[in-house]
């Protein structure tokens, strides 16, 4: 459990985008309305070269959010001490405005699978994840935000709902929440529950950051809609509407646009950030 001297997160309640190196010049030239940038931690764990030089440069002008995709918080085995040390080093020199990771696993038997894999929501998983988050927060010396996953299937053995599970993790570890609104919509569609009902049960008071991204549409064996979190296109209208639903209840929050595959030209990404700004503008501070 964190004590109250631990550094917490302080991103502005404004639009941010996932940083892509091809946008470097244009971001420095005209970022408006983008006020902060998010990086994937693992891409900046080399020893030097252009990635670190660009990040140093950007961090002088923008608050940076460090978003880990490789820690495997939900792994059955212990966290990789080498990876923890790399994370500590990055967060140490960069002193980012925020640090977040996923409710997922990605490493097993020292094999990294490069995907965010699902977890059963059981007491055993809860205990293990809380131990891992305690270790992460102790190691990097600051609060972590935990992101809800996109789910394509459910575990028969689960005994907790996802919002309750996340709330209990926050209570036990003192971690904050990264609410991915697209993931809520994807999971709710895939598993037939109400996305608004999910938000109503979710610990909104712990949210330090919101994610938005695009998804693909597919079907399962029985013709049931199967949405796939792809981060490869615009955010759909129903997800923007769900963002409004969230912001009406949470107040203004930092809102990130994620676009990781088929990365568009900067003006298209900026237009998505404009839309996030408009959503924030209609909420009283």
């Amino acid at each position, binding site marked *: 459990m964190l004590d109250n001297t631990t550094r917490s997160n302080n991103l502005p309640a404004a639009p941010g985008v996932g940083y892509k190196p091809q946008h470097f010049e244009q971001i420095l030239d005209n970022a408006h309305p983008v006020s902060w940038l998010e990086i994937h931690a*693992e*891409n900046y*764990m*080399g*020893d*030097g*070269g*252009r*990635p*670190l*030089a660009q990040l140093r440069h950007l961090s002088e002008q923008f608050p940076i959010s460090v978003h880990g*995709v*490789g*820690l*495997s918080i939900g*792994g*059955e085995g212990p966290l*990789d001490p*080498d*990876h923890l040390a*790399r994370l500590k080093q990055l967060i140490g020199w960069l002193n980012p405005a925020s640090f977040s990771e996923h409710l997922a*696993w*990605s*490493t*097993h*038997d*020292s*094999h*990294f*699978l*490069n*995907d965010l*894999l*699902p977890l*059963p929501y*059981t007491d055993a998983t809860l205990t293990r994840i809380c131990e891992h988050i305690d270790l992460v927060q102790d190691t990097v010396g600051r609060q972590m935000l935990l992101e809800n996953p996109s789910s*394509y*299937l*459910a*575990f*028969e*053995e689960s005994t907790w709902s996802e919002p309750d599970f996340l709330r209990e993790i926050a209570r036990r570890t003192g971690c904050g929440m990264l609410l991915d609104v697209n993931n809520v919509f994807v999971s709710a569609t*895939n*598993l*037939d529950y109400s996305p608004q009902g999910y938000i109503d049960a979710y610990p909104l008071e712990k949210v330090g950051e919101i994610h938005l991204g695009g998804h693909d549409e*597919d079907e*399962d*064996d*029985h013709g*049931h809609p*199967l949405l*796939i979190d792809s981060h490869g296109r615009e955010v759909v209208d129903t997800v923007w509407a769900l963002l409004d639903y969230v912001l009406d209840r949470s107040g203004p929050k930092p809102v990130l646009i994620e676009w990781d595959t088929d990365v568009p030209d900067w003006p298209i990404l900026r237009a998505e950030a404009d839309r996030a700004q408009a959503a924030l503008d209609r909420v009283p501070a």
Partner: protein
Amino acid sequence: MSVSQTTFHAALLDPAAAIPEGLLDAAAQPAGRRFSVYRNNVAVSLTDAMHQAFPVITKLLGAQNMDGLAGIFLRKHPPSSPLMMFYGEEFPGFLAGMEQLSHLGYLSDVARLELALRQSYHAADKEAAPTDALAIPPEDIMRARLGFAPSMQVVRSDWPIFSIWRFNTEDGAPKPAAVAEDILITRPDYDPAPHLLPPGGAEWISGLQAGRTIGGAFEETAAQIPEFDLGATLALLLQGGAITSVTIERLAT
């Protein structure tokens, strides 16, 4: 029915394996092809990573063949760390062991070159020695020892890997001839660039890396390769900012 990560992991990497019991769809029926979303994510993301990591190999083999090869490789050698920037270290050895590719003997060395370029790209920054650091009397030059930038790499081959690399990355580059080529990679700013080393260049640099003086390494190299051109090799290192320190031991007086 609980599903361990061992079970999940095994079924992920083996498309022929049964989907683990205990995974459900929205109607609490067996998850079926919903599980394939995870299988696809893993296979597609690692295959994409291989395409990005080995663009020249991909060009040489064709994208479709590369997909097939990556599919075998990623199951045999899944990443051993979340640092995807270094994924594929076993790929040169894997290519060398593929019997179907034995008629393309150079592939493995081209893959080593592409790995070395990526390692150079992510290597630590180190400032080059001042341009006049070697503007010293010739007898001092021969007594000097050199320190090299972490981004410097030497790739040796029995194949014309420099010519193959250029032919597949530069418009109008000449067709490769059947000769052995050694490559020096330097990174003047942030972009690693391969250069063809003159004969003996790789041996001489290796001597310097082992702590020999410029003169000592030269004598060893020239004994084997009389035509070794020290000036041309030194110029490549200097122009590429690969020399980071020059240390001259003073003779006792």
